[in-house]
């Protein structure tokens, strides 16, 4: 085990996150905007007796913070390739898949830290209360952040430059978020979208969060799957993502172009 190098990567992520105040601030503001603006608007349109749409949205925005937080942290892997910091990692004395493990854990850690900060805010605002199932919440935070880190690692392992960031936002982060049950119950989606949502691992993270924080909502607006299903899917996906990203990252054809980016020239 290489716990010290893994710790080094985690520590660097936290130090960088704490220095990028705007990143933290927007991680707090984005979900609150969704909760208050979208939540209030949709809530008025979808008015149903006994259902508070804003309350329904709480797990969704918690998940959103984790998804964005983990994705941004995972993409530091691409930043590291471009800026050259990756050189420090690839010359260190451990197998290169450890870089993927460490980066995935640091993405998960970034997600958890941001989710905890948001939870405090939501608690103060009265959206998360005493009926929260805290054991489940901890599990949901850990498993969802790992799965989000896994999505991030898959994207990062297949991305060469940060120029593609807008494309990643449009084609990865937004679809994963919108097609997940964050904004509407999966059971009420049209069939085609329902299949997409069922194939989306992030759906199960949001579902686990629903188990933890929206106990009071009527049936049909609460969680869609069993806790065990959520845990199984999230765990399975995270492991698979780790394996695929590690394989991709250690593969020579993926690795050598990176060396050339690193040295700035070919075979010199």
């Amino acid at each position, binding site marked *: 085990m*290489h716990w*010290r*190098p893994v*710790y*080094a990567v985690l*520590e*660097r992520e936290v*130090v*960088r996150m704490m*220095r990028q105040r705007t990143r933290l601030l927007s991680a707090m503001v984005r979900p609150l905007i969704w909760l208050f603006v979208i939540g209030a608007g949709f809530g008025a349109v979808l008015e149903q007796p006994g259902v508070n749409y804003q309350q329904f949205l709480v797990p969704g925005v918690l998940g959103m913070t984790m998804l964005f937080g983990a994705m941004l942290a995972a993409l530091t892997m691409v930043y590291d390739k471009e*800026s*050259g*910091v990756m*050189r*420090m*990692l*690839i*010359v*260190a*004395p*451990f*197998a290169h898949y450890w870089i993927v493990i460490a980066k995935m854990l640091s993405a998960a850690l970034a997600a958890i830290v941001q989710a905890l900060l948001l939870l405090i805010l939501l608690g103060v605002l009265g959206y998360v209360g005493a009926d929260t199932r805290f054991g489940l919440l901890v599990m949901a935070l850990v498993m969802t952040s790992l799965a989000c880190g896994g999505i991030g690692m898959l994207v990062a392992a297949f991305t060469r430059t940060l120029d593609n960031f807008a494309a990643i936002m449009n084609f990865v982060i937004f679809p994963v978020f919108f097609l997940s049950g964050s904004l509407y119950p999966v059971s009420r989606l049209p069939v085609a979208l329902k299949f997409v949502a069922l194939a989306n691992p992030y759906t199960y993270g949001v579902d686990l969060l629903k188990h933890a924080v929206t106990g009071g909502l009527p049936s049909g607006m609460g969680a869609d799957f069993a806790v065990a299903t959520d845990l199984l899917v999230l765990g399975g996906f995270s492991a698979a993502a780790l394996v695929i990203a590690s394989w991709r990252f250690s593969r*020579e054809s993926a*690795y*050598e172009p990176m*060396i050339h980016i*690193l*040295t*700035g*020239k*070919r*075979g*010199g």
Partner: protein
Amino acid sequence: MNQATEPPMAVRARGLVKRYGEVLAVNNLDLDIPAGQFFGLLGPNGSGKTSTIHMLATLIRPNGGTAAVADHDVTLNPVSVRGAIGLVFQDSALDRTLSVAENLRFAGLLHNLRPAVIEERAAPLLEMFGLADKRRQPVGSLSGGMRRALDIVRGLIHHPRILFLDEPTIGLDLPNRRKIWRFIERLRAETGMTVLLTTHYLEEADGCDQVAFIKKGKLVQSGSPGELTQRLGRYVVEIESPDPDALASRLAPTLGEGLKDGDVVQFRYADEDVSRLAQLQSELGTLVRALRWRRPNLNDVFLWVAEGKA
């Protein structure tokens, strides 16, 4: 040769091959670097120097041949190799958003050093490289020379037995280049570490124990800088002429093939007696605008090697 008297080898490569598609970057390269040596790997751009270093550092895999670094095979045991070497790349490996101390802490932890050990080792290195009072500064605020120095400190924090320096002074001005070299000399004197250097500034390779010139991925010349310059000739004769082609063909029978560079043709001269050269001016008349001879240096070896005439 008696095996027992051979010094231990820091690097031993046999028949190394690296191919990128059609391009043969390294072509059947043999390399022996005894432990403790200061070794210069020289050659024109694209000659395969960086590919060679990256194969030895286990960052790319050879397509053929074998190499052992610090007695570990680079393909079978890359992690042990990486544990024994320090590598300073052509471009910075530092995180500009972190401070000097934070960068070293990150590099040290990656090499599994305890934080206290990192502090202990960083202090004298930062002192030696003139960075002791910059510990808390973000790397982004350092000058190019200081960043380079820090990058070398970064490559040394885990006390490697072998240090690879890939163009360590590229892009630096003369005072900073000199400073970096003084650091490296001091370091070698204090630790006896093996250093493998690639550089374009050949005067920097004059201090090497051994240099090897490679061209198109093949070793073309190797030896101590003194041997190589002597092998080139006793003197290098430079003649500036209004018609360098005519001059070259006129002198080819007596001085051998020349090396043209603009108006100047360079010849190699093996004899210590230069009286023959002194007569050239009157012999050649208006074909000579200026004539001088001097001792060859590594730059001359490099030029002759690059032209394929050495």
